[in-house]
């Protein structure tokens, strides 16, 4: 069963609220389209996962990297931003570490974490149905075929888009959040970061009052007079 292609899937509210998702959509159009949306959790809670363990377990140090879940995510990130001479790769920007921090340290909604994790199961389910292999066991051409395949579904496109958005964050946000070592992404794109940058103990979710921080990703506000 290929769950990315489940016809009951509707893009959930938390994802519609992301600025990259809302891009090119007017606020009014967004409000209208929001009507009748079904939360992903209500459509997927009974769906089985395949090759990955979804339960939140405490994995010390870097042992999490060798779990099926994170090995698969690593393979996907590597494919989305591969090693080449044209620019830094997912490995170079520490995309996996960043994504792990998004899931375990940042105040990310449980619905989104569930979506990221279940997507791995759906990916492997699709990969096995098409090529009888888990995603990590595929060669580059096969990986491309599988990712192109799932991107034809709304859920699959949303899942890949979510990972791409975190690749951008890993590339261009302060190093203390886990990505962008020594400004590698910013240097590549000739972008100059501001200063001072946050350090351990002053990440946004560690500041006084941070207990209130919304799990939501703030949408692009209709603000003006708002940039330097």
């Amino acid at each position, binding site marked *: 069963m290929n769950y990315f292609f489940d016809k009951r899937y509707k893009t959930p509210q938390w994802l519609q609220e992301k600025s990259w998702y809302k891009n090119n959509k007017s606020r009014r159009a967004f*409000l209208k389209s929001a009507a009748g949306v079904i939360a992903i959790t209500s459509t997927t809670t009974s769906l089985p996962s395949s090759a990955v363990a979804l339960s939140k377990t405490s994995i010390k140090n870097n042992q999490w990297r060798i779990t099926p879940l994170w090995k698969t995510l690593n393979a996907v990130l590597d494919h989305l931003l591969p090693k080449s001479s044209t620019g830094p790769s997912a490995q170079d920007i520490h995309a996996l570490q960043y994504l792990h921090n998004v899931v375990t340290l*940042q105040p990310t909604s449980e619905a989104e974490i569930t979506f990221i994790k279940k997507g791995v199961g759906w990916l492997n389910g699709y990969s096995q149905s098409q090529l009888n292999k888990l995603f990590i066991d595929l060669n580059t051409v096969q990986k491309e075929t599988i990712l192109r395949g799932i991107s034809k579904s709304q859920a699959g*496109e949303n899942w890949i888009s979510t990972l791409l958005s975190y690749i951008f964050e890993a590339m261009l946000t302060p190093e203390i959040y886990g990505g962008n070592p020594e400004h590698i992404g910013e240097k590549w794109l000739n972008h100059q970061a501001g200063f001072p940058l946050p350090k351990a103990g002053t990440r946004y979710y560690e500041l006084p009052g941070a207990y*209130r921080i*919304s799990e*939501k990703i703030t949408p692009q506000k*209709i603000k003006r007079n708002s940039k*330097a």
Partner: protein
Amino acid sequence: MNYDICIIGSGAGASPVAYTLANAGAKVLVLEKGPWLTEKEFYKDELAISLRDAYNPNLNDEQHVIEDQYENDNGDLFWQGEATSESGSTFWNGTVVGGSSNFMSGYFHRLKPFDFRLKSEFGAIDGANVVDWPISYNDLEPFYAMVDKHVGVSGKHVDHPFAEPHSTDFDYPPLAEHPVAVWIDKTAEKLGVHSIPIPRAVLSQPAMGRRSCEYSGYCSNYGCSSGAKGSGRAALLNNAVAGGNCTIKPESKVYKIDTDNDGQISGVLFYDRQNRKHKVTAKYYVVACQAIETSRLLLASKGNKFPKGLANNNEQVGKNLLFSAGGTGQGDFIFENMSKQQVNELTRVGPFLNRSLQDWYQINDKTFSHDTKNSMTKNIRAKGGTLDFLFYQNPVSRAFGSQRDSDGGLVWGEQLKLNLKKEFTTYKTLRFEVFNDWLPTDDCFVTLDNKVTDKWGDPVAKVRVGFHPHDLKVGEYIAAKGEEFLIAMGATNVSSGVSGSPPPNLQAGGCRFGNDPKTSVLNKYCQAHEVDNLFVTDGSFMPTGGSVPYTYTIYANAFRVAEHIKQRWQASI
């Protein structure tokens, strides 16, 4: 403890009152819902500022209901509310000590003298509740000068057709300017318009115990780590607290203002961080929670004398809410069409662009000849607005879009790298923002929602956000001028967009001041007509907003009202 002054809120409307009264010897209490952050806790943190909402409440805990207008299949218009916890469109703008002033750009344009008499100058507009202010520019001017001095405004005067009179020079010289400012100056000269250096509430020199700007290139939206930005916290509250007469209670959420049988305020009720209830008393009470929340608090504060909410027996509280009308525009400068020096100038990061145009602050154009009731008199003058230039930084937002091809399909791998490289290294976008009056109407107001409550169980504000079509007409007129200007500068891909969507960070009105209690909440001293010991000092007092960002005027008016409260307090002791 019984205080002389209890202030609810701590931003631009609150801090001048705390500063003035505490320095005069009054015992001042400031109740702020958010935490107390300092320079040590503000960073140029892309995640905190641009991608997460790190300085505001969780929308599941505290939110608004926004009523927008829709059209059904039959073409009928109707209003429908949506909770911001559902839409994600937050209307919070900085819930910390100092409020949204911590995150402002500090574009400090003054109102013009005719902004104070909009109806007299430009006439009535059908469907708009335009009125004159009960005070003049001359009444407020000394307090603008006070802001220049105590908050710290850096700038220089230049003459232009709509320059307002200043009694003093700026206390601080202009900030270092971006090379593109000169490009704008030259284009303005060529087109016969006037390029104006924008006064900024950012110190260009160390002063008053604060460091000067360190030119990180990330100012607006970001909290200031040097103290140069003139937030209410850095510029005024720190000073007030240091003097020993001002107490700030952060994480104190006021939920009701109590009144006695005489209709006077008898105390303020608030929750602390542990949700324990407290009550404090004072001689005078000042509400400055930003426009929407100020109206909400008054509406929620019912009493025997005020069954419809505090100071609301004439049902004016929450009415005539204002945002700022206008829009944005942009044009690209393509590196391959430019010299190396031009590219170097364009891509500099750090100094401020600081340029605006106000040649269309008043419009003389037949486009507007039918908008006034006096159209038969061939009155073609219309109120216009301001056009400010700016660059965006925000790299992650810029990256978004690179994952799509021209048909909207997802790309990754080498194509994604090519797209990113092209996006970041082949051009730079110069933007402008248009500010024009958001006309007060019967379709823009605050009430209490009867279903949605905050985490304490109190009704949240329901905000109807209707706009007047005239706002779009003016905005589009000025945006077209902005597009012409960018084209004259040599920009390509020039475009603009004007909409009636309210910018949540530019709020005013809801408790307009005036001389008639039947049509206003406050008198000219921003004291409630109906409550002798209540003052409102945020942007709520504004019956019309002018065509500039509000913070400068809110500061100036709060200093003006503070002087009045000081005199009353001193006479009472």
